[in-house]
């Protein structure tokens, strides 16, 4: 049994960022927790992914992960335990709501990893598909569409993947109601949201 290892040269994060900004001017990047994040926009995304795959020094053969995070508009109190203790709450304020789509690329040849982040408006989130560059994006993009409502232009089959076909809404968005929706398959019982429930009400 042979034991192949990475044969290329592992680029440090700053060298990797320099390599990308040399090709794509105006590309912002930051490094946190030892991980490089490159902030791209929707227009250059596919070119950037293609470059990352085809360039010899970057050489990312594998789209390891594709996920999304919703950052809603306005101020949000991030509650700790306000009702019982009065411990401090964090406040998150956002001018415009956005959905951040994260592409984690891995180079097996060289052994480095980088993340490409693309933020799109959360009212009408729309991105070009990455399936033309990495076929594995197919399921991932269906999942991001299903959970966060991002529409990927040019995707071969952009349908819901984990939620039922007739589901309304995108559950991983932060504005998706918790409770207060009809419970399917239980005679469409309506469970009120937590803040409208009587405190001792038992919901079966």
């Amino acid at each position, binding site marked *: 049994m042979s034991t192949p290892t990475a044969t290329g040269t592992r680029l440090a994060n700053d060298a990797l960022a320099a390599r990308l900004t040399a090709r794509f001017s105006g590309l912002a990047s930051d490094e*946190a927790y030892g991980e490089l994040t490159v902030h791209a926009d929707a227009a250059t995304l596919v070119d950037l992914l293609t470059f990352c795959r085809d360039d010899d020094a970057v050489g990312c053969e594998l789209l390891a992960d594709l996920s999304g995070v919703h950052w809603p508009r306005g101020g949000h109190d991030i509650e700790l335990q306000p009702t019982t203790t009065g411990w401090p709450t964090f406040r998150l304020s956002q001018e415009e709501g956005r959905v951040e789509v994260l592409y*984690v690329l891995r180079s*097996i040849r060289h052994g480095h990893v980088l993340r490409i982040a693309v933020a799109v408006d959360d009212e009408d989130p729309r991105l070009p598909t990455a399936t033309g560059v990495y076929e594995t994006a197919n399921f991932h993009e269906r999942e991001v569409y299903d959970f966060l409502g991002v529409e990927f232009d040019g995707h071969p089959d952009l349908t819901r993947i*984990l939620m039922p076909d007739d589901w309304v809404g995108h559950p*991983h968005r932060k504005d998706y109601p918790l409770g207060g929706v009809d419970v399917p398959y239980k005679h469409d019982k309506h469970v009120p949201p937590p803040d409208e429930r009587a405190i001792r009400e038992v919901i079966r």
Partner: protein
Amino acid sequence: MSDTTLHGTEAAEAADRATSADDPTLAALRAGLEGESELFVEGADWESVADAVRDETLIVNMGPQHPSTHGVLRLVLELDGETVTNLTPIIGYLHTGIEKSAEYRNWVQGTTFFTRMDYLSPLFNELAYCLGVERLLGVEAPPRAQAVRVILTEFNRIASHLVWLATGGMELGSTTVMTYGFREREHILDLFESQSGLRMNHAYIRPGGLANQVTDDFVARAEALLRRLPEKIGEFEDLLTENPIWNDRLRGVGVIDVERALALGVTGPLLRAAGLGHDLRRTDPYCGIEQYDFDVPTDTAGDSYARYTVRIEEMRQSMRIIRQALDTLPSGPVMVADRRIAMPSQQQLGADGMGNDPAYIRHIMGESMEALINHFKLSTEGFTVPAGQVYSAVESPRGELGYAITSIGSNKPWRVHVREPSFVNLQAAREMTRGHQVADVIAVVASIDPVMGGVDR
């Protein structure tokens, strides 16, 4: 009046009411009444598939309730005779919203959720999540916790591969392999139970270390398993390696090459069986696994049989790692010293059968008010984690298991996304089965080894 007659009468009435001759439904209904039977199936995804294919193609729905689909996996097969021309996996039947639920629990409670995703490799889920949280916190588990994590996850890899052998063997008709595989797994689960209290879904690996110190007989139990398993794995090889049925069913079935595997995001034993020795334990080592000597088994055939040989060899290599880790097992605590993160983990079994840490209880109840306040806050609100995003990945039995964790600096995750190897690898099923026969679909899906708890999350 029987149901059949009632149905027939209704159908006749409906046909009588028909006025529009070009309505296909009514035309078909008429045809049905005249003896040409037609079958109607409804469902959104079904129609999209059914409309797209030629007339000669037969569409067969396999699953979601089918004994050989590894749980609730539904496969829509397009068949030309007995040959598969297309395969569409339809998933989501086991979706439990774990990622969403975790956003409303504190960081420690997260392990309890994520351990339930891929139920055959629960410790890998805990490990990948905890490594991500630890990277955000800027802490590192003590050496003993790291070594025990390696030992337990490698045992978990063996257990997972044994279930793959067991279920895969059963699906191909060998119930002997099934009973042997589950029998050996039981012994590994005994070890897990003795350490964590649970046979599955342990929530034993926690951010900062382990939930509890390992028991005194941990090493003895692990040694006993290491003595037992090699012979038993040899039994599998005696049964299967030269077995003509096993060879005929697996060789040349479900072939995928390295280039296509990478394009489709396939990792783990499938990629290694295709010839690329990519293993995250080598390229991005975690928990000090780089200090142990082990090989990454590969094959070049890229078919289902190569996956069998690679997995068998992986079990042997896992035992090599465990052997070295046991020999060099450090002593000391299994949880970080930082009391803002660490729950008491040096518990002892009391006379009442409950675990408790007498020294810790004496400290918080008798000596320090601040320690009591800290314990109360830790138990109720949990600890806060600095804001940021990390992607932490480990080599699970099925491939790259990654946790993309986003924190905003509160006591709960803002978003945790899991890159599940089963979910991604399942995409390759279409390509692996094209041109094969229906019976080969079973062999291919078995060789991919998807765990639906992980696929649907």
